[in-house]
C-alpha cells in the first residue's frame, strides 16, 4: 500500500497519535505513583482510539473510549484508591538490575521477532481491494459492518462470552467477599 494517495493531514495525525501513544506508554511504565501511571495509560488508550478511527474502525474507537478508558481504568483507579496505594514513597519500586537486564533482553528479542513478522509477505489474494472497508462504512454506517459478522458467523462465540462474563462476575463477588461475613450469615 503506497502512501502517495494518502492526504498529508491523515499521515500527520496517524504518526502524531502513534507517537503520543508510545510516549504515554513509556511514561506509564516509568511512573512511581500508580495513579499517575493509570492516567498515562488512559492517555495511551485515547491515542489508540484515535488510531482506530483513522483505521476506519470508528465504532471500535468509541468502544475503546467507553469500555477501556471509561470503565476498566475507572475500576483500576477505584482499587488503587480503595487500597490507599496512591503514595509513591511506600509502594513497590522497580526490580533490581538483573531483572531490568533480563527485561531489556526479552524486550529486544520480542521487538526483533515482531519486526521480522512485519516484513513477512501476506498473500495478496486474501486482501480486499484498497479502501473496501471505508466504502463498506460509507454504505452501511459505522456499526452494521461489525454487527453483521458478530451476530451471524460469530454468534456462538458471542453467547459463550456471556457465560464468561457471568463467571467473572460471580468469581469477583466470591473473591471480594470478606472472610468474616461467612459467620455473620
Amino acid at each position: 500500500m503506497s502512501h502517495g494517495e494518502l492526504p498529508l493531514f491523515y499521515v500527520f495525525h496517524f504518526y502524531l497519535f502513534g507517537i503520543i501513544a508510545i510516549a504515554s506508554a513509556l511514561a506509564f511504565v516509568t511512573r512511581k505513583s500508580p495513579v499517575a501511571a493509570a492516567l498515562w495509560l488512559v492517555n495511551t488508550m485515547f491515542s489508540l482510539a484515535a488510531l482506530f478511527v483513522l483505521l476506519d474502525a470508528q465504532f471500535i474507537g468509541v468502544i475503546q473510549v467507553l469500555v477501556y478508558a471509561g470503565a476498566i481504568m475507572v475500576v483500576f483507579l477505584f482499587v488503587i484508591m480503595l487500597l490507599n496505594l496512591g503514595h509513591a514513597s511506600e509502594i513497590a519500586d522497580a526490580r533490581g538490575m538483573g531483572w531490568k537486564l533480563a527485561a531489556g533482553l526479552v524486550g529486544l528479542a520480542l521487538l526483533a521477532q515482531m519486526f521480522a513478522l512485519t516484513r513477512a509477505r501476506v498473500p495478496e489474494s486474501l486482501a480486499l481491494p484498497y479502501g473496501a472497508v471505508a466504502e463498506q462504512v460509507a454504505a452501511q454506517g459505522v456499526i452494521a459492518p461489525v454487527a453483521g459478522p458478530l451476530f451471524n458467523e460469530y454468534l456462538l462465540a458471542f453467547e459463550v462470552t456471556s457465560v464468561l462474563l457471568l463467571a467473572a462476575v460471580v468469581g469477583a463477588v466470591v473473591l471480594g467477599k470478606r472472610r468474616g461475613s461467612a459467620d455473620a450469615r
Partner: protein
Amino acid sequence: MLAESLFFSAVLFTIGVVGVLTRRNAIIVFMCVELMLNAVNLTFVAFARVYGVAGQVFVFFVMTVAAAEAAVGLAIIIALFRHKQTVDLSNINLLKG
C-alpha cells in the same frame, strides 16, 4: 498504514512486557497486561482494514475478556491486600521453595 500500525503495536506490546518484568507493584503489572491487550487490538484493527471487518469483531471479544480479567484480577488483588497488607509482588512468595 499497515506497516506503521504493526510498528506501533510491536513497540507498545514490548513496553508492556518490559513493564511486567520490571515492576513489582501488582496493580501496575496488571495495567501492563492491559497495555499488551491494547497493542494486540491495534494489530487486529490494522489487519481488519486490509483483510475484512472480521478482525474488528475479534477486538470486541478481546475487550470482553479484558473486562472479565480486570474484574477477577482486581478482586484477587483486593483479597491479597487484605491478607498481606501489601501489593508488592516480591512479598507474595508463598509458592517459593
